[in-house]
């Protein structure tokens, strides 16, 4: 009873797409060209990297001021993005909105997501000038594209039964949403908000490069003056500490929310 299976039966969708990816990556190699000159790559790297050390701690005070502004940009832009996204996500949720609201809203969100944060920052600098307000506008718009999509997915995947039960008890559609659907979607939504705050802090660190406020301006100045890579490394070190702290806190909160929703924790 040793039946041979056809060779092609081993290739499911996952296998086929993985093979296509490998083939496409290998096929792209000829398109990647170096300068053609003989360079001492390793030596260059060592010389350049050595300029980062030791970090110049004398600029710590200045760096804190820049980081504070970066955090303020991240906090304010995330706040506004959450506020706007809640409304937009209602329009982009299949189980809440009719098709004539759903598709235009999703199209708007697609357009917003297409534009990278640095381009939003450039646009904002052109409109309001080179300051931290430009950073807030840029990151708010950028975040809305993602948060509204994540929120709408949270509403679509949330358990609808509580909402239906409240409707059957006489609640209005809005009341059933507020007390039936919202509590079930809220932990997932809050988890996305925390992720977006971390992301916005990283983005706010770079948009200063185009004049949109924050620590990015410091990075630009140190990168442009040839002997300041040790100052540059201190700024990177501070960003790393803050991003790691935010990531740690965010993960702890997300874990706690997941455990609570799955009934594994009573806190």
């Amino acid at each position, binding site marked *: 009873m040793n039946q041979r299976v056809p060779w092609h039966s081993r290739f499911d969708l996952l296998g086929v797409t993985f093979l296509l990816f490998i083939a496409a990556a290998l096929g792209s190699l000829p398109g990647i060209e170096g300068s053609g000159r003989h360079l001492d790559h390793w030596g260059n790297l060592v010389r350049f990297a050595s300029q980062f050390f030791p970090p110049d701690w004398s600029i710590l005070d200045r760096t804190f001021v820049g980081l504070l502004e970066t955090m303020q940009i991240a906090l304010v832009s995330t706040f506004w993005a959450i506020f706007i996204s809640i409304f937009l996500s209602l329009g982009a949720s299949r189980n809440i909105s009719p098709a004539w609201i759903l598709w235009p809203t999703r199209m708007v969100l697609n357009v917003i997501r297409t534009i990278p944060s640095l381009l939003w920052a450039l646009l904002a600098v052109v409109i309001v000038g080179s300051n931290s307000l430009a950073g807030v506008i840029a990151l708010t718009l950028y975040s809305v594209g993602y948060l509204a999509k994540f929120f709408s997915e949270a509403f679509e995947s949330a358990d609808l039964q*509580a909402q239906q*039960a409240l409707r*059957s*008890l006489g609640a*209005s559609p809005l009341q*059933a949403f*507020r007390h039936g659907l919202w509590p079930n979607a809220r932990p997932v939504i809050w988890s996305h908000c925390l992720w977006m705050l971390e992301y916005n802090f990283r983005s706010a660190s770079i948009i200063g490069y185009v004049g949109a406020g924050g620590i990015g301006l410091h990075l630009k100045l140190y990168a442009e003056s040839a002997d300041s890579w040790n100052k540059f490394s201190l700024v990177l070190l501070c960003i790393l500490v803050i991003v790691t702290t935010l990531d740690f806190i965010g993960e702890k909160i997300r874990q706690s929310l997941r455990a609570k*929703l799955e*009934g594994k924790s*009573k806190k």
Partner: protein
Amino acid sequence: MNAPTPLLEVTDAGLKIENRWLWRQLDLRLSPGCFLAVTGPSGAGKTSLLRCLAGQIPLSEGTITGKETSIAMIHQDLQLADGATSLMNALGGCLRRHSFWSTFLSFPTKERTEARRLLEQFGLSGKENQWASTLSRGERQRLAICRTLLARPHILLADEPVASLDSTWGDRVLGHLKETSQDRNGCIICSLHDESQVTRFADFRLHLDESTPEGWKLQSVRKDKTS
């Protein structure tokens, strides 16, 4: 069940799901104060009957008529908001009486007091601020009952409301439902599996037959005077 003004009247009703009649030619008159137990094997159509009476499934034939009155149902699958506290879940029952904005962030004190009283009666005091997802199955069942009772329905439909409770809690809950319903001059239609609970609490029993859609039987339940 001969009463002058029935709360609910079902005439010649039938339900067909996927080319199979669950029950047909069903006639019922539900008077104020009455407790009707619906019994029968799994798949006989008990839940479907309750959902038809709640207006959630249309009948395939026949009619359901009644006074303009409130109906509420305790669902077998509970349908709680897992990410909301026990208190907020219970308060969901009173939404019909209030506007959206008056319940947007908080609820009127009177409703909160009543909800807390119900939670206490059903053994959930001290768990008001706990998410529903963190409660045990039995606690969740009692919470779903609190929510439905806070809706103050005249006709209470209960789909196996004590299935996850031990006999002590089961009896307490059924006793409470019956007492509340009689106080409000309403009626209860409740699917039950436990024969002794049917005998002790129900006034009438509707037994659905899985094999014959017209084979349902409506009987008065003889009360055991010692119980």
